[in-house]
């Protein structure tokens, strides 16, 4: 009687309890894989049940198979224990991941709210700086000599630059918070529109432009316009110093995905610094050589990433640069 209890009943109870636990976990985790463990435990339960039935029918010797009962019972217990421990581990991992994701979301929200508040609080004194220096320049022009006026000009231009920085920071911060409106976007028309707007500011020195065939994409129209605006503004900026400035906008297919690109024949950049390109406020050229706050590419990267795509650049120093980006393919 003791043998049946030890080698059949106890293992069966342990197995059934583990199956119960595993079923609950399968439901909680909403995953099919624990069912494989359950299948194994069920097989073992069937075997033990069979042993008990044989015992009730034919007695101990028929039911139990001598020394083999020890490893068999051990296997049952180990399988049950293994299943339970493994499932508990999985559940802990999931809880930790959820906690982590929650914390990341909270931190991001905090950071964006911080950026937003700071930008707005910075604008007020900036308005005062700009306002009062301009009033000084106008109202007291007669009392100031050329140097005095120049000093005030520097105050005003610094205020302008700071305003631009704040605007850029605000745009970057807003990108994380804004809801995306997905529609089908005609990339060709979009690029042409942006080009027209930029060309206006380059009256006579506009580069030669080539637009290839751009397949439509799915995404947020205003955000994608921002990407083209930033890439094309850069392209124009760097190409304009060339004798024959050229800017090319196009797309090519690579492994089923559309890769859009903007290329210029300007100074290019050192590929060693390629990883810095998309950092906010980072410039891979000598400061002051090219205007801008350095956040345009960071904004473009953020937008492309929100669309599930990638952005990168290639360049040969002295020969120009090409910026490539992909957008997530829709489920079509």
């Amino acid at each position, binding site marked *: 009687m003791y043998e049946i209890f030890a080698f059949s009943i106890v293992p069966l109870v342990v197995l059934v309890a583990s199956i119960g636990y595993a079923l609950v976990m399968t439901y909680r985790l909403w995953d099919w894989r624990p069912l494989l463990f359950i299948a194994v435990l069920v097989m073992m339960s069937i075997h033990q049940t069979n042993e008990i039935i044989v015992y009730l029918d034919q007695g101990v010797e028929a039911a139990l198979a001598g020394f083999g009962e020890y490893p068999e019972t051990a296997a049952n217990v180990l399988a049950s224990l293994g299943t339970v421990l493994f499932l508990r581990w999985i559940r802990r991992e999931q809880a930790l991941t959820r906690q982590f994701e929650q914390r990341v979301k909270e931190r991001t929200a905090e950071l964006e709210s911080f950026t*937003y508040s700071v930008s*707005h609080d910075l*604008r*007020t*004194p*900036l*308005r*005062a700086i*700009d*306002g*009062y220096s*301009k*009033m000084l320049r106008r109202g007291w022009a007669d009392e100031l000599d050329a140097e005095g006026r120049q000093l005030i000009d520097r105050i005003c231009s610094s*205020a*302008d630059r700071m*305003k631009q920085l*704040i605007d850029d920071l*605000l745009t970057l911060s807003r990108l994380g918070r804004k809801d995306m409106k997905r529609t089908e976007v005609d990339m060709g028309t979009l690029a042409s529109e942006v080009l027209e707007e930029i060309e206006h500011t380059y009256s006579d020195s506009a580069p030669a432009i080539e637009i290839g065939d751009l397949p439509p994409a799915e995404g947020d129209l205003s955000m994608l316009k921002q990407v083209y605006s930033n890439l094309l503004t850069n392209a124009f900026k760097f190409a304009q110093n060339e004798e024959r400035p050229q800017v090319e906008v196009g797309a090519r297919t690579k492994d089923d995905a559309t890769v859009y690109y903007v290329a210029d024949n300007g100074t290019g950049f050192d590929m060693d610094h390629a990883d810095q390109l998309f950092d906010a406020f980072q410039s891979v050229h000598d400061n002051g050589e090219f205007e801008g706050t350095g956040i345009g590419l960071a904004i473009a990267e953020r937008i492309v990433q929100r669309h599930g795509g990638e952005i990168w650049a290639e360049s040969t120093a002295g020969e120009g640069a090409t910026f490539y980006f992909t957008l997530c393919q829709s489920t079509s």
Partner: protein
Amino acid sequence: MSSANHTGPVDILLVEDQQYDAELALRGLRELGIERIVDVRDGAAALDFIYGRAEYAERDPDHVPRLILLDLKLPKVSGIEVLEALKSDEKTQHIPIITFSSSEEERDICRCYELGVNSYVVKPVDFDEFTETIQQIGRYWLKKNEIVC
């Protein structure tokens, strides 16, 4: 720095907590020849002024300003709360209110229009633009726009 007699008729009630922003606005408006401007520093004072309470107890609440320029970020009572109070009161509903705020946030703009603001203008940082904007507002709402009652 306000020049109006608090008890008399008032053209513009400027509700602005930042001293320099208030000064710049007053300058711009005075250049247009608008003199009867009262400026207050917080939302509570704005409501006290309109209803003739507390330090403005001598005011007749029937004499409402012809235009209210309202900043959103205010101490004590916020701009949104002032807007809500005035637009939900039959006696003050008709007063044109213009939000004049640094905030470009869609949620602030939408909320103000939902509450019935007459116009939402974002405060420019550049001084010339700021002056131009405030003067456009003054010119339109006080000289061109026909104000009921």
